[in-house]
């Protein structure tokens, strides 16, 4: 299985290199079940940009799975899982290559369904069943919205292929955009439509979560990119809506993440946050498209696409390392862990790399893409347009806030899980992950560093993708290489690393020069310190969660401790998903009530049944 998958990925790589060397090839066209449509397959720069993470992460996940999900340990579902995993990868590769509605929908649905079976692989657990079912219904909502989009497209243009939508009535185009936004947005996990995401990511096996969060949700982004690329001059409000949604999911995503104490749920909410950042970039690009500002288009689009790559790398890196922690300790509760730095150093190191990268800190890759988006937002100050004012004035500081919160959140996770002393018995017999698990992590970490240190490497491809998206070659002055300080980023990163090295050496030298001793941690003379006295992730997050209580509505159970010798009390806090618990569930419950009312039609009473016939007859006779 794994070998086959890797071979498949190899073929994909071959295809990409062929594209990079030989340029775009002629589209491949096959007969489809619908007479008017033809299955069309073509690889252009955008496809390649999305193909790369698909192949990288899937291949990594397969190798990782070899020891994370051993066939010998999972007799029952091991084969099943790797089958659906392979199908998932294949579907995504087909998806980004598809150039007509029918094939796109086909690949889309196969992807959605096989992802479902990957998530629900441990279906004896009721939570898994519930989460995966939530995912499936959400993703079917998405699919049906896409039915609507492509049906409208076909009705408007008369063809099922992806052709320019110029000349389509604005109203129709807006409806298409909204449907696409709901459809693709649900898949991507943009904030109000994200309900399925945390549960699914938490319940799935970690390497599946890595693929889901690394590439599957990016397919929603791909869809939006494709969709908008068909519209020459989109209305301004498209871009504004995208930016606003981006800000919302960015800020609230990370805010929710801070409130979580399940490591995988937390990472899932960070996916929402990063999707938000990507959507900001996309929105900026769309805005630039409508206002005719090539520099916004380049910076926004390049930022978005590069962040797609970066999020794919560091998020799957994080899920992998979280996975090996879970594999070693059998718990996802952050507050149960601690001190794993010593027992599993490699995993800890890779997690740290991922954490720094996802916070967008130099010298790693997250910084580069966020810098592009920042620059674009700053550029948008240049013109006198209300929309762009709003964009820059509120998106940029929001991005800064996101950065700060992300730092807080990942210090919390890294600190609680890997640093300090271990809490509880889970960490007792923790062990370092095997090579086939750390190997993929190492590769991903290397990619993070590489892109962070030398963004110039990826610039040409990004530029090509932007050209494809705009449909014309961007003039020299506005190209990525000239609007973004690619070289300087490397210089800055190099300086930083150099200084780190030097100062580190100095410290090392001083330490070995003078005498050293070890003792207990100084905790202000407290007599009997114990690991359980450490700051937990919940206590770390408390202040921030309080700041955001207006949005998070956290649930706190804090009993009063009275009397001189109080008996045992237990405190816990929990941050549920408000959209799911306060909006979706009530609506569903209401619908069920309404439906049950209709059930009274079918009460087994013959006379009533016959009466219906008569009534219908009369109604239709009346209706002229």
């Amino acid at each position, binding site marked *: 299985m794994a070998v086959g998958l890797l071979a498949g990925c190899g073929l994909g790589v071959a295809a990409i290199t062929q594209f990079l060397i030989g340029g775009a090839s002629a589209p491949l066209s096959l007969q489809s079940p619908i007479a008017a449509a033809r299955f069309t397959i073509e690889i252009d720069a955008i496809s390649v940009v999305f193909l790369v993470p698909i192949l990288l992460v899937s291949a990594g996940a397969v190798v990782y799975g070899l020891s994370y999900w051993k066939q010998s340990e999972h007799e029952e579902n091991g084969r099943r899982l790797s089958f659906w995993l392979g199908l998932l990868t294949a579907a995504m590769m087909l998806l980004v290559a598809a150039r007509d509605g029918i094939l796109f929908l086909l690949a889309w649905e196969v992807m959605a369904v096989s992802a479902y079976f990957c998530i629900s692989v441990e279906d004896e657990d009721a939570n898994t069943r519930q989460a995966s079912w939530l995912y499936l219904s959400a993703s079917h909502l998405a699919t049906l919205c896409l039915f609507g989009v492509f049906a409208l497209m076909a009705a408007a243009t008369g063809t099922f292929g992806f052709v320019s939508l110029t000349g389509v009535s604005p109203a129709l185009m807006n409806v298409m955009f909204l449907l696409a936004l709901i459809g693709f947005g649900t898949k991507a996990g943009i904030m109000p439509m994200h309900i399925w995401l945390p549960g699914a990511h938490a319940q799935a096996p970690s390497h599946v979560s890595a693929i889901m969060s690394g590439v599957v949700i990016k397919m929603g982004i791909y869809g939006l990119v494709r969709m908008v690329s068909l519209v020459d001059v989109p209305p301004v409000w498209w871009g504004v809506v995208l930016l606003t949604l981006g800000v919302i999911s960015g800020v609230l995503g990370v805010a929710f993440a801070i409130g979580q104490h399940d490591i995988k749920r937390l990472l899932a909410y960070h996916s929402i946050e990063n999707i938000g950042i990507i959507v900001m970039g996309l929105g900026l690009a769309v805005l630039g498209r409508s206002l005719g500002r090539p520099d916004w288009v380049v910076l926004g689009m390049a930022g978005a696409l590069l962040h797609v790559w970066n999020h794919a790398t560091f998020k799957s890196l994080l899920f992998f390392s979280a996975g090996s922690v879970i594999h070693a300790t059998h718990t996802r509760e952050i507050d149960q862990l601690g001190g794993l730095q010593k027992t599993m150093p490699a995993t800890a190191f890779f997690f740290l790399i991922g954490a720094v990268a996802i916070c967008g800190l130099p010298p790693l890759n997250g910084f580069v893409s966020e810098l592009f988006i920042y620059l674009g937002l700053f550029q948008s100050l240049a013109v006198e347009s209300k929309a762009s004012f709003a964009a820059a004035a509120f998106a940029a500081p929001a991005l800064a806030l996101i950065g700060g919160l992300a730092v807080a959140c990942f210090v919390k996770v890294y600190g609680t899980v890997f640093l300090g002393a271990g809490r509880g018995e889970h960490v007792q017999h923790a062990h370092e992950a095997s090579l086939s698990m750390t190997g993929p992590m190492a590769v991903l970490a290397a990619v993070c560093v590489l892109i962070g240190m030398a963004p110039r490497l990826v610039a040409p491809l990004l530029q090509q993708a932007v050209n494809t998206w705009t449909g014309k070659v961007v003039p020299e002055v506005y190209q990525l290489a000239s609007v973004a300080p690619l070289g300087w980023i490397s210089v800055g990163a190099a300086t930083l690393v150099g200084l780190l090295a030097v100062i580190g050496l100095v410290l090392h030298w001083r330490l070995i020069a003078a005498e050293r001793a070890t003792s207990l941690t100084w905790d202000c003379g407290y007599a009997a310190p114990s690991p359980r006295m450490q700051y937990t992730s919940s206590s770390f997050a408390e202040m921030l969660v309080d700041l955001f209580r207006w949005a998070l509505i956290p649930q706190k159970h804090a009993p009063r401790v009275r009397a001189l010798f109080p008996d045992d009390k237990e405190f816990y806090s929990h941050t549920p998903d408000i959209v799911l618990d306060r909006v979706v569930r009530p609506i569903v419950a209401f619908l069920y009530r309404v439906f049950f009312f209709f059930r009274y039609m079918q009460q087994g009473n013959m*006379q009533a049944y016959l009466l219906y016939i008569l009534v219908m007859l009369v109604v239709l006779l009346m209706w002229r």
Partner: protein
Amino acid sequence: MSIQAVDPVLVLALVLNFFILANSQLRMVVFAVAIQGAILGLMYPIAHQGFNPPAGVAVEAIGALTLVRLVLLAMAIVLIKGYVIPRLLFRAMREANIIWHVESVIGLTPTLLLGAVGTALALAFAQSLPIKPGHTSTLVIPASLATALTGFLMLITRRKAISQVLGYVVLENGIFIFGLLLIEAVPVLVEFGVLLDLFVGVFVMGIIINHVNRSFPAATSEHLSMLRE
């Protein structure tokens, strides 16, 4: 003799409708239905246009073969509706020892009133529909509608499965009345087919009623309501 000649008979049919609705004796109802069916059968030859070519349409004089067919059809109708079906029903009732009493969901008098209203509506509705010049002032259409409606009324209001079967037969009677207008259109063969279907249908229903009463005593179709949401 003309198509109008059947009008008095149709009046009789209408009266029978009310009798059927009003009567609480299942046996009487069966008889009434049988009579209604039988007289309809007798009407068939009379109503044939061949006897009275109406103005406007050139109808060839009625041929011997047609006559024979008509007579056969009439006999068949009389036989099945007037004899066989009642026998079937009686047998079913006897074997299933059903109480010889009509049970209505809303009571007999309201049913009767509804029937009256229905008949009135049927007449009104019939007025709203155009009549072929040849058939002016004939009762056929309203009568058939009213009878069909009566049948439906029985189906909806009667509790016992058996009386619902009766309702079905009455409904069919209504359709047969309308058939009087189209003896040329609807070939005798088809009429036979329809008749056969009716017969088999009632036959099977009788069997079912039997089984029903074996499975659970007191066969009101309200006991037949296990299957529900």
